């Protein structure tokens, strides 16, 4: 047992962090939200070059994965830098299509290389899946699953604005080319939904960590009543609670990376999602009015926290799944 990132994993995270910091993601996010996908696609290529999408793709299809621990490391960084685009959906699409050899060959190498941006709408009947394909207008393909049919959507409806304008929602049109069908589609879709929930948990944790970081820095320098507001005990305790929530979400995330069990993923999803939302509420309150403005970059993270909390598994759906799998007396077995 060594429940600790090894040196290589930690360094991978730091490298990604440096690359994304240098890329100036806030400008990319604002462009993306305005419908200008150019800077986002350029960033996407660099993220692919750093090897992120290859982590979700098996070696047989030019990837190096699946490597859930490394994926968690990477998606925490994507969240920490508020990277826009269907990063979760593309990796989940790799999981989905990777189970279906007939279509894997066409799409997975392109996903690994960053050439293909893919969005996804899984079966709406699944409590963990929503009705939209995120950023469908920027995607090279929109994959849909209904029942046991997997299709390439023939297009999408109008933009449905999200509370986070960098999340551009579209309903895929019905029909389209049938890529695969049968029970294997259903099984693959369930795995893809789990993968999406897992990566969203990682992204949430990153969002929460960055919100906390920015808020701590702000409260150290913001003066009121002649003292930094970070010296007030009410401020301290609220920040301490936020750190607590995040630091106890982290082990659940990496525990889920190691087990890949649906219940463990659900536990990580609800905990990271709630922690990030807690961080957002804290960040807004402690920034005061300035935090309530779109122009402060903080808003790019603030607005992401709640949609991520509910995407790919609401807190209620996740909690139900945690207990579905809980067979008393068995969870301690080796």
């Amino acid at each position, binding site marked *: 047992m060594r429940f600790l990132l090894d040196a290589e994993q930690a360094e991978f995270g730091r490298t990604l962090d440096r690359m994304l910091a240098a890329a100036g993601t806030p400008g990319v996010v604002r462009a993306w939200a305005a419908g200008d996908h150019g800077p986002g696609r350029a960033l996407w290529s660099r993220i692919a070059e750093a090897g992120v999408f290859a982590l979700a793709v098996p070696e047989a299809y030019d990837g190096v994965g699946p490597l859930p621990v490394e994926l968690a490391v990477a998606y925490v960084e994507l969240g920490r830098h508020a990277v826009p685009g269907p990063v979760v959906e593309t990796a989940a699409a790799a999981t989905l299509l990777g189970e279906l050899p007939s279509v894997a060959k066409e799409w997975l190498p392109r996903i690994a290389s960053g050439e293909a941006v893919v969005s996804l709408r899984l079966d709406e009947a699944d409590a963990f899946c929503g009705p939209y394909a995120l950023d469908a207008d920027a995607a090279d393909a929109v994959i849909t699953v209904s029942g046991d049919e997997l299709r390439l959507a023939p297009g999408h409806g109008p933009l449905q604005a999200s509370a986070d304008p960098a999340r551009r929602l579209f309903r895929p049109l019905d029909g389209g080319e049938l890529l695969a069908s049968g029970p294997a589609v259903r099984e693959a879709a369930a795995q893809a939904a789990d993968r999406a929930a897992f990566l969203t948990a990682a992204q949430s944790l990153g969002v929460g960590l960055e919100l906390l970081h920015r808020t701590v820095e702000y409260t150290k320098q913001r003066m009121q*009543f002649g003292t930094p507001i970070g010296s007030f005990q009410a401020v301290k305790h609220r920040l301490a609670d936020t750190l607590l929530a995040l630091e106890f979400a982290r082990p659940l995330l990496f525990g889920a990376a190691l087990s890949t069990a649906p219940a463990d993923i659900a536990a990580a999803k609800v905990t990271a999602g709630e922690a990030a939302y807690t961080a957002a509420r804290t960040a807004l309150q402690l920034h005061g009015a300035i935090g309530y403005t779109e122009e402060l970059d903080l808003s790019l993270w603030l607005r992401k926290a709640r949609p991520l909390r509910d995407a790919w598994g609401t807190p209620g759906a996740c909690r139900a799944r945690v207990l579905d799998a809980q067979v008393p007396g068995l969870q301690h077995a080796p």
Partner: protein
Amino acid sequence: MDLDESAEEQVFRAQARQWLRAHVPAEPPASLETEEGFAEHRAWEARLYADRWSVVSWPKEYGGRGVDLVKWLIFEEEYYAAGAPGRVSQNGISLLAPTLFDHGSREQQARILPPTASGEVIWAQAWSEPEAGSDLASLTSRAVRTDGGWLLSGQKTWSSRAAFADRAFGLFRSEPGTPKPHHGLTYVMFDLHAPGVTVRPIARLDGKPAFAELFLDDVFVPDEDVIGEPGEGWRIAMSTTGNERGLTLRSPGRFLAAADRLVRRWRATAGPSDTALRDRVADAVLGARAYHLFTCANASRFAAGESIGAESSLNKVFWSEYDIALHETALDLLGPEGEVSDGDWQEGYVFSLAGPIYAGTNEIQRDIIAERLLGLPKGRLPQDPGLTRAGRIPG
């Protein structure tokens, strides 16, 4: 002790309901944080005013009906139950007018109150400054004496409604270097279109320009637009925060109607067996009732000649945190659809998030509750009573 309505009150309620049923637009106007919506809301204010429903508690000479607080509460209940539009004139009616009633001259009252009530003049607030958030006594914007009036200079921010409003009111430092920072401030009204005023709208989290920065460069204000004595602005601003009109910041009718809407949504989308959501919906219902009754108790205290002091901090913390919880519950009822920004509840949710921040942060309100109502030892807030009330300026 009773909650009964008199026959007269019942008649008043019926009249209000009837008028609202006949006049509330079937389609809600566009958001009042947009230019188009602002104009639509302004027109609605004129409609209300024409039939004396804009300011029912004001004297008849200024367009009101001269009714008491109980009838005002009844009107507010009916107003929100009818789904009537938000009040774009709220700054003027709820924040400026009480000060004018208490400290304005007869001339000011006659000149300013009617157009304020009719929507002809929409008011913005000009309290905060970049370095003076909760610590309002540290204001630095200046009012310098000139012939027949004052020249205003400096910067104001978080000026709500200022993107589209006509005029603004706020405090300016007219006597620099007083030993106590809350002395030497003057309460001033000014035109947002006057020479020297630059308005830079600020977009809130949902992108709507709900407030603005104001840059003031030698803006002339005639003496007639100073309220009360120069240098006495702080006392004047503070004196009305605890009075009965201070209650109007969030009327209970608004939350009763919101809880009602939540119950409808819950019945439509969730099973009663989903007890996790059921419990939160129930909390919204009983919270609205608690807030309504708490306000009734305060209204009764006013009627009995008592006054409300730091208790208004209980009010502020309750409604602001209630409002967020209600909207979070609504969004959770919607599940992943909750993130859709033009949905039923998103604008209300974004609006609610500001509640614990403005009008005195809830951190400061809790300090006030602990120190004033429970008598705990003073903490880090400055000791001057005026200063610790800084948090109470609605903004």
